[in-house]
């Protein structure tokens, strides 16, 4: 306990050199030490960093994992994603509420436990999953969840949390001394690029024999395109950054893998961190950067110590630091920036703001990050998988890479497969592979629908199962959520919209308000009060949000509605009221007069047989 309010916060600021651009690290550290960032702490931080207090409050209130009010010693964050719900998260939630005697969003009176819902934590292949502080729990069952609470009640020191909660370790590096997690890799198919054997340092050694321009040419010749979903040509991005005026440049690896149903980067970070760091160093050399940042989502904090350890090893081996591998003048090091629970920070300009200790609002473009990025430096932001591909291209040559996949879509793609299938997990497939053959690999017997690319992607029905995963057909960041018989498409859409409402930064009107309105109407239809005209209303509103939104989140958030209206219209029609053609059928008279009936303590008179 602090004697002077905020004195702990001030010393934490000191540890970060009182640098306002490290505000996100500072508030996260304050919360780790004292449970929350309360008013005195905010005042102390603002004073130490020379910021307005309201600025600090604005940052703290933006991120899902930060709080200005005290949380319990143990914060249980249960994932409420669609897949987790399919696998029984609601039963787990009921079990936890019953055991603790509180509802979600509350803290026990003794201050020991908080229950919160959280968006996808990257464990859809082993759902339902939850975080207890930094510790990941997978394949939860109601009984086991209650047992877990009882165990925690008896725990003397919160520091023992990981040991107590993790009975057995997952495969591969999940059992590493610095990870010790029950998470499984579920790596089902290893392809040639990411999960084949690699020799540490080989790609970098080859890159350093070339000029930066030649490295960029190699990546362009390989036709590498971004693996995060947008598919922008990687070499071109590097070229723009290299060509931008400025002496200091920055390379950022985007490991804020927040798209529900996506977890491939988790497996790269666990099993191939050297490949990622090698790719970052190659990219740094190509664009002329001296600083690399790995932006790691808060949900993957359990991997942080391990990743820091790998970085240390690379520094010791001369693969990072001054004059990398003896290359005079090429200085490059990598720091890890932890996120704090915000999907929007996967958007590259929001991610840069977050790295600078700001709210994770996307920036106005132009200028683009390649011209004006992290702290004003020309900056490249690449997906984790993209950087791994780049390293392999330098190691094996562009010809080797471009022979994999198809003409327009070179290389492999990691898929994160979850939902109604017997073998969920990560699959490294050659680009151009059909959905149907993926279903055969993952044991999806008879899917009625598959969500390609997570909620921001599209829902595909059986008529399209022969389509191929590649840039000119089904382009995707790699999430495949499989839905089998009995799943309600409209309900899935409602859950997806809830996700976007929760994760919208709120900067622009259409995304902040439009997603709320979309969900309102989808839910009205789900409740059996929908009218035929509601389908046109939804389409028009969705188009408005798509066109008018400022960044990729809002421009894609209506996709669940638009893609299902196009392919699964019958699913909506099934829910429409029988009197759906009658105007005003969507009006719920009982709900409208409920409050007045309660106030006057009179039941409305009903006339049956209408």
């Amino acid at each position, binding site marked *: 306990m602090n004697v002077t309010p905020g004195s702990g916060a001030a010393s934490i600021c000191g540890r970060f050199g009182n640098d306002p651009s490290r505000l996100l690290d500072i508030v996260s550290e304050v919360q780790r030490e004292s449970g929350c960032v309360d008013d005195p702490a905010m005042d102390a931080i603002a004073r130490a960093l020379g910021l307005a207090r309201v600025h600090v409050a604005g940052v703290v209130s933006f991120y899902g994992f930060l709080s200005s009010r005290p949380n319990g010693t143990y914060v249980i964050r249960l994932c409420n994603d669609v897949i987790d719900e399919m696998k029984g998260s609601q039963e787990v939630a009921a079990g936890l509420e019953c055991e603790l005697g509180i509802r979600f969003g509350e803290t026990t009176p003794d201050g020991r436990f908080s229950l919160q819902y959280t968006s996808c934590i990257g464990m859809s292949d082993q759902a339902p999953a939850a975080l207890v502080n930094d510790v990941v729990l997978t394949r939860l069952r109601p009984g086991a969840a209650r047992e877990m609470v009882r165990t925690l009640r008896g725990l003397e020191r919160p520091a023992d949390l990981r040991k107590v909660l993790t009975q057995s370790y997952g495969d591969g590096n999940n059992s590493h001394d610095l990870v010790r997690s029950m998470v499984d890799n579920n790596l089902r198919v290893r392809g040639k690029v990411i999960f084949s054997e690699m020799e540490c340092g080989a790609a970098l050694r080859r890159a350093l024999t070339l000029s930066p321009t030649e490295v960029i040419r190699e990546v362009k010749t390989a036709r590498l395109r971004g693996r995060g979903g947008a598919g922008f040509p990687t070499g071109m991005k590097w070229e723009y950054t290299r060509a931008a005026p400025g002496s200091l440049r920055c390379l950022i690896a985007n490991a804020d893998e927040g798209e529900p149903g996506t977890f491939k980067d988790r497996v790269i970070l666990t099993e191939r961190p050297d490949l990622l760091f090698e790719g970052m160093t190659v990219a740094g050399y190509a664009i002329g950067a001296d600083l690399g940042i790995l932006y790691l989502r808060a949900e993957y904090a359990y991997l942080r110590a391990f990743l820091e350890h790998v970085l240390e090893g690379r520094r010791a081996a001369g693969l990072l630091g001054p004059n990398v591998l003896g290359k005079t003048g090429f200085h490059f090091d990598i720091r890890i920036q932890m996120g704090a629970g915000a999907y929007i920070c996967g958007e590259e300009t929001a991610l840069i703001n977050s790295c600078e200790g700001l709210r994770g609002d996307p920036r106005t473009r132009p200028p683009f990050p390649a011209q004006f990025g992290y702290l004003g430096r020309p900056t490249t932001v690449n997906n984790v998988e993209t950087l791994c591909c780049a390293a392999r291209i330098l190691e094996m040559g562009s010809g080797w890479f471009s022979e994999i996949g198809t003409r327009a879509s070179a290389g492999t793609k990691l898929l994160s497969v979850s939902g109604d299938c017997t073998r969920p997990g990560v699959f490294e497939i050659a680009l151009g592979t059909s959905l149907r053959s993926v279903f055969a690999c993952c044991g999806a017997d008879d899917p009625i629908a598959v969500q390609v690319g997570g909620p921001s992607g599209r829902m595909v029905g059986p008529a399209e199962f022969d389509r191929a995963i590649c840039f000119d057909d089904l382009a995707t960041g790699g999430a495949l959520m499989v839905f089998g018989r009995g799943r309600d498409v409209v309900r899935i859409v409602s859950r997806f919209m809830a996700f976007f409402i929760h994760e919208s930064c709120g900067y622009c009107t*259409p995304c902040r308000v439009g997603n709320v*309105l979309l969900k309102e109407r989808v839910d009205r239809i789900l409740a059996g009060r929908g009218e035929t005209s509601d389908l046109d209303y939804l389409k028009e509103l969705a188009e408005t949000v798509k066109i008018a939104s400022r960044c990729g989140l809002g421009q894609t958030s209506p996709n669940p509605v638009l893609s299902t209206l196009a392919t699964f219209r019958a699913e909506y029609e099934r829910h429409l009221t029988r009197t759906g053609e009658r105007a005003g059928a969507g009006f719920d008279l009982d709900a409208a007069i409920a409050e007045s009936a309660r106030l006057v303590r009179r039941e409305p008179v009903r006339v049956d047989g209408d």
Partner: protein
Amino acid sequence: MSEAMTLSIDGREIPARHGQTVLEAADDAGIYIPRLCWMKGLRPAGSCRVCTVRINGRPQAACTFPAAPGMVVENDTAELAALRRALIDMLFVEGNHFCMFCEKSGACELQALAYRFGIAAPKYPYLFPKRTLDASHPDVLLDRNRCIVCGRCVRASQELDGKHVFDFAGRGRDKRIAVDSAAGLAGTAVTAQDRAMAACPTGSLLVKRVGFAVPIGGRPFDHRPIGSDVERSSGE
């Protein structure tokens, strides 16, 4: 850096200078592009999206997009009018706006835009959010019910007043204006004379004890629709 160029808006060639945004160039030419979060003298935010135009076919916010030679801009089209109407509707339903007894009526830019676009009632359902009011300060009042989170007060306080009274807190539908003190406005450096106070386009930030000093009927938008000042300044 004020090299001349031309671009076209709805088929009309207009001059522009390098460094100008599309909205600024349009203003100079007497073409009104509707806007809410934009205010002369403040860094543009591009957050309300009411100024959305199509630039070479792509939707963009005119207030942040730099003018460039040969650019083809669509502004006064049926599609964009419908889009802007939808955005204005959204701003109405996400807050709690009571035009008929609001002190800002007739001088409110949100209300004026609704009139300009012929909106009698929003087409979206009201969300009736629970919002808070900060009356702690002796001279000024912050009513978040009428706030459209445009951020003009946030920018004006920093850029014009040299203070940092306001900023955003929360995210998504919970995004709101916060003030620089745990004690509310009373604990901040705000004064009734702050440019931030005058920057509010709605009745969210009000100076106390001057209500209805200008009577209804004598207010800026009582006689001319919003945007008339821009259109009047046209050289034609």
